[in-house]
């Protein structure tokens, strides 16, 4: 047991840190440090810089553009990305459909899609959730009927994150409604968003932003070559996909960055004869989050290190802890930001996401704080709600 990073790991961290510091676009970094969302353009630019370096899809097999890093190095890389902060890769291509394609896809699919994912030439979105299904993903009802060399797709997907920008969507569709179990008879289709019959309707989320969408399919013709793997085996690929995204789920680096900002604001924001940071109780609340976060970071390293031993790609049920605690801490940090800014959380800037026109009401760091707090309520709901994660721990770890 050696609980320090090795000199090689430390050197790797330094290399990553230096590269990010030198190369991340300044505007993107400032956007993130202010707690705002990066634009599509900022994300594309940064992905291409990383791709030029060979680091845009580090966890992929080397033959498809990956780096060959072990899990600890992948963890360090992600941690540094979150802490910089640098724009994070969108998971949809990078961690979701990419690994599905290189694992289960045809050679043609690999050649056609993977390089374009690595360079963010194609913007992917996810078509899993449906209205009324929630955490019961397999209860989906979007239908795909094979007609000659096409599937005809009808149905509706929802919670499609950033679908408004997407070039492609990967969907779970029901190809055999007569299958004896609902998990059977599902297929995994890649669909060009420009296909006729697809409509995207924005969903306005709690903070006022447009991050998710509904996607409607009306007689959408999808070439059969866009089926991944075998027909009616899509549920297996979906499970693979969902179990795949473990490292970084806790968002430790992002929460660290948020706490850095929190301290900055608490030290600037007037309260009484001094500033918010003067209050012992406030400092203790911040420290309490930092301590839980340190514990979580160690827990994450233990999970990552066990994965390194056990071999890649087998999800550890302990990663449910990372999901639960990680999201709780993300939420706790946004709560503390609200408390720090206090009454100046009140003004709403409708233009916030697109860039502002008028001078802000109150300090210029105030505007994103309440929206972030509101928006972060989603993290304990999505990706398998925290209640579902506790079921997983009870069953898979404790045998209850």
């Amino acid at each position, binding site marked *: 047991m050696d609980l320090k990073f090795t000199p090689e790991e430390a050197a790797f961290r330094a290399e990553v840190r230096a590269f990010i510091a030198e190369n991340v676009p300044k505007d993107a970094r400032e956007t993130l440090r202010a707690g705002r969302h990066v634009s599509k353009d900022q994300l594309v630019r940064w992905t291409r810089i990383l791709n030029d370096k060979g680091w845009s899809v580090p966890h992929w097999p080397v033959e498809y553009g990956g780096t060959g890093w072990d899990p600890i190095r992948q963890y360090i890389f992600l941690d540094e990305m979150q802490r910089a902060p640098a724009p994070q890769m969108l998971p949809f291509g990078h961690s979701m459909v990419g690994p599905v394609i290189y694992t289960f896809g045809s050679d043609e699919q690999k050649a056609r899609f993977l390089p374009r994912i690595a360079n963010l030439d194609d913007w992917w979105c996810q078509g899993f*959730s449906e209205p*009324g*299904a*929630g*955490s*019961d993903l397999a*209860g989906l009802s979007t239908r795909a009927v094979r007609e000659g060399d096409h599937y005809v797709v009808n149905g509706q997907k*929802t*919670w499609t994150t950033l679908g408004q920008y997407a070039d492609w969507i990967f969907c779970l569709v029901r190809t055999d409604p007569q299958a004896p179990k609902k998990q059977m008879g599902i297929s995994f289709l890649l669909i060009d968003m420009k296909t006729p019959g697809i409509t995207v309707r924005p*969903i*306005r*989320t*709690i903070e*006022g932003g447009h991050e998710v969408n509904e996607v409607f399919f009306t007689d959408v013709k999808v070439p059969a070559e866009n089926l991944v793997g075998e027909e009616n085996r899509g549920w297996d690929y979906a499970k693979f996909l969902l179990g795949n995204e473990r490292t970084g789920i806790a968002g430790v680096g992002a929460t660290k960055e948020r706490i850095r900002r929190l301290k900055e604001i608490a030290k600037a*924001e*007037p*309260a*009484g*004869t001094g500033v918010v940071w003067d*209050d012992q*109780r*406030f400092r203790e*609340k911040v420290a309490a989050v930092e301590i839980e976060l340190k514990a979580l970071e160690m827990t994450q390293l233990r999970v990552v290190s066990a994965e390194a031993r056990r071999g890649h790609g087998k999800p550890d049920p302990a990663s449910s802890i990372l999901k639960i605690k990680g999201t709780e801490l993300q939420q706790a940090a946004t709560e503390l930001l*609200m*408390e720090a800014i*206090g*009454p*100046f*959380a*009140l*003004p*709403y800037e*409708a233009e916030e996401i697109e860039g502002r026109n008028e001078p802000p*009401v*109150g300090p210029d760091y105030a505007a994103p704080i*309440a*929206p972030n*707090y*509101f*928006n972060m*309520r*989603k993290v*304990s*709901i*999505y990706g398998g*709600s*925290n*209640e579902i994660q*506790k079921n997983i721990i009870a069953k898979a770890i404790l045998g209850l």
Partner: protein
Amino acid sequence: MDFDLSEEQSLIKDSVTRLLRAEYGFEAREKHRAEEPGFSKKIWQSFAELGLFAIPFDEADGGLGAGPVETMIVMEAFGRALVVEPYLASVVMTGAALRHAASAEQRAAIVPGLVEGTSRLAFAFAERATRYDLSRIAMEAKRDGGGFRLSGEKTLVLHGDTATGFVVAARTAGAPGDTAGLGLFHVPAEAQGLSRRGFETQDGMRAAELSFADVIVPQDAVLGDPEGGWPAIARIEAEAIAALCAEAVGSMERMVELTVAYIKERKQFGVPIAAFQVLQHRASEMYMALEQARSMAIFAAMSAGESDEAARRAAISAAKVQIGRSGRFIGQNAVQLHGGVGVTMEYEIAHHFKRQAMIDLAFGDADHHLKLVADAGGMDERD
């Protein structure tokens, strides 16, 4: 001791409830707040017709002579419906200013317009560095001939963008943080040198920044002693907090109701999610948090008129702590139990959640008031 409503109180409650049920469903509410001044003038007029604006004022001033319990009844109903009309700003807050600071002549001049709903005042106290300490006011009011000259900036003035006038807290002596040297001034919105910039708030209401560039007001614009306004300011704050507590409870009650209904109806894995015991217990905990908050809103209403300042402050702060904690717990869990739809603008629940968050931050959040209670030695019984 009697928790039953009197006949008059029941009447107020029934009439408000009836009006809101008919005219203030969630979709109607979204329409009201999209109207030009940020609320519905028609609804505002209906409130006037029900006599709601007369509640806190003395009968001699044309009011109903009712008290904090009646205000609690109204605000609780408003909280359920997420009412966006400026009742808190105009009737509760500036109403308190008039009752506690103004002369009979001033009240005779101002109250009738408020009661009829033809004028709407807003209370301008906050500045960049005020945060939760209302004595931390820097804006100056200098004697100028027979009146005063006001210069400086006010911010976060609730409903300030469409108010017909303001009650402004400004400093005639001393320094920010001194309770002495503060005065209250009645300033019409069209006063020379006063400009404002309105903005939307996170919870779907309106507010404004005000800029005072040598605004001259006459002597009779001064409400009470121009250097001794603090006791009235403290009472405005206490009554505002008591009213907010009641509003918060109404909103919490609605959230519990919506959530219980949602989990009964929403199916997952083939059963209503209300079949899951963890969700049942969560709902029970939300209900307990609601009832504890309701108890403290009642306690705040009981104590808002308390003349012993220390006892009043302790009670009001304690209520604000409970409301903040219950509101956060209920709000967060209501959203959580709604799942994805809970974080969309299309469902009512998100709007309650945001309102709760803003109520917590109004006049001091839960931990701010906890510190005040602790610094005062706790909730020692004084009986």
